């Protein structure tokens, strides 16, 4: 079973996150302006609980003394060493090529579809009236 229902779509409001346990793995689900992303709750730097970090904007600058915020609520700061990760891609801002948080695909699926499918989690009751977030753990 590689796909699992983890939450109702309404459980994760825009700009927030929730950590769920899926087949023994902790995964953070993020709502970025209505789009959902899922990252392993494990920082690629030193294994910290990445998804418990703050959701922050990206600080940018034209030069010394100049500060600007961009991409509000799209970045995650690891609660240990503060490394910044792009929630959409899992990439570390400072080392995008070499450092990346593990990502999982997450989709919104209507309850009506899920009730009939084979991938409803035993622990998560699904009703046909609502939408649900479904994580794909991959192969």
């Amino acid at each position, binding site marked *: 079973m590689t796909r699992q229902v983890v939450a109702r779509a309404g459980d994760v409001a825009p700009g927030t996150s929730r950590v769920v346990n899926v087949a023994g793995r902790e995964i953070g689900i993020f709502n970025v302006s209505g789009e959902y992303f899922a990252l392993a709750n494990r920082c690629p730097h030193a294994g910290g609980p990445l998804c418990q970090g703050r959701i922050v904007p990206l*600080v940018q600058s034209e030069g010394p003394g100049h500060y600007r915020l961009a991409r509000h609520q799209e970045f995650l700061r690891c609660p240990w060493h503060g490394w910044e990760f792009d929630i959409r891609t899992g990439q570390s*801002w400072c*080392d995008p090529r070499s450092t990346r948080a593990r990502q999982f695909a997450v989709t919104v699926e209507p309850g009506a579809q899920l009730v009939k499918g084979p991938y409803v989690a035993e622990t998560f009751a699904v009703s046909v009236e609502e939408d649900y977030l479904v994580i794909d753990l991959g192969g």
Partner: protein
Amino acid sequence: MPSAQTLLPYLDEYWRDQLVNRHIDKSSFILTSYPPNSPLSARPDWRQASGAPCGSLDDIRRQALDPFGSSLAICNVLHGAVALFNEDMSAAMCSAINDWVAKELLDREPRLRASIVVGAHNPALAVKEIERKVGDKRFVQVLLPAMGEMLLGRRIYWPIYAAAEQHGLAIGIHAGSTYQHAPMASGWPAHRVEDYVAQSGAFESQLLSFLAEGVFQKFPTLRLVLLESGFTWLPTLLWRTNKTWRGVRPEVPWIDRPPAEIVREHVRLTLQPVDAPKNDPQALARTLEHIGSDRMLLFSTDYPHWQFDGEDVLPDGLPDSAVRRLLIDNALDTYPRLREMAGLGDNREIKQEAVR
């Protein structure tokens, strides 16, 4: 180093009057950092018969240039004028020093180049002096001390860097202190050797100041040279700063790439002193690997300071592939003005020396 008396003809009449009538011209203007009789200050076979560390132009030719086959050498005058608190007096004497250097050294020896000596405490006056001397292409660098009143990356000093960048001059931070702060974070050590060892920590702090303040973002073609700094401390700085940056980036968001990359691009260090064990060339070889660039070291003798014996100026452990870069190419890349006037043969060297 020019004595105060020697500088008198280079001063205007007010300053001549002040120096003579206040007996300032009887002062030696020796920097505390280099007590003249200390073993570091002059190698025994370079020391004058009189005991003074610093010799004549003939001595410089015979001892510092000829034995190493140097085609070009940069003189850095370490003079007490930079430690005066009176900004105007300091500036006037620095101007006199620079004029003396041009006339007594550069005019008489075509292999010599020099740094512009300025008082950092008044950046506007420092810029004035840079603008005054910059037309003489034999001046290739602006000289500042490793321990001064404030960390040199601070914005208050930026007019100096603007002028240097504009005119293609490097910024050269040289070992030495004006002692406006205790040399250590915990105060005043008892011994000269401790003050000297602590200089490397000062260079680390200065380099980090340039990085954190974004000097290299503001002045993208500026080159910073660390003179008589040692260099074996560099890998740790690169490693630690890269790591810290990832956690503090929002505080200094103008740093847009790993600090180690910025350092490798903008910063150079002179060869002497080689702070590595003589009996273990692998230590130096591994440290150079850790630095991760063969472009960063500039050949130097640090004449007349006693950093090596005989002509043993190149340490064991230097890979052969790095030698030509060390002796020639890195300096030419760092000091564009050297190229303009160069007429260089093969196997020639370009180096830095301290002249006091």
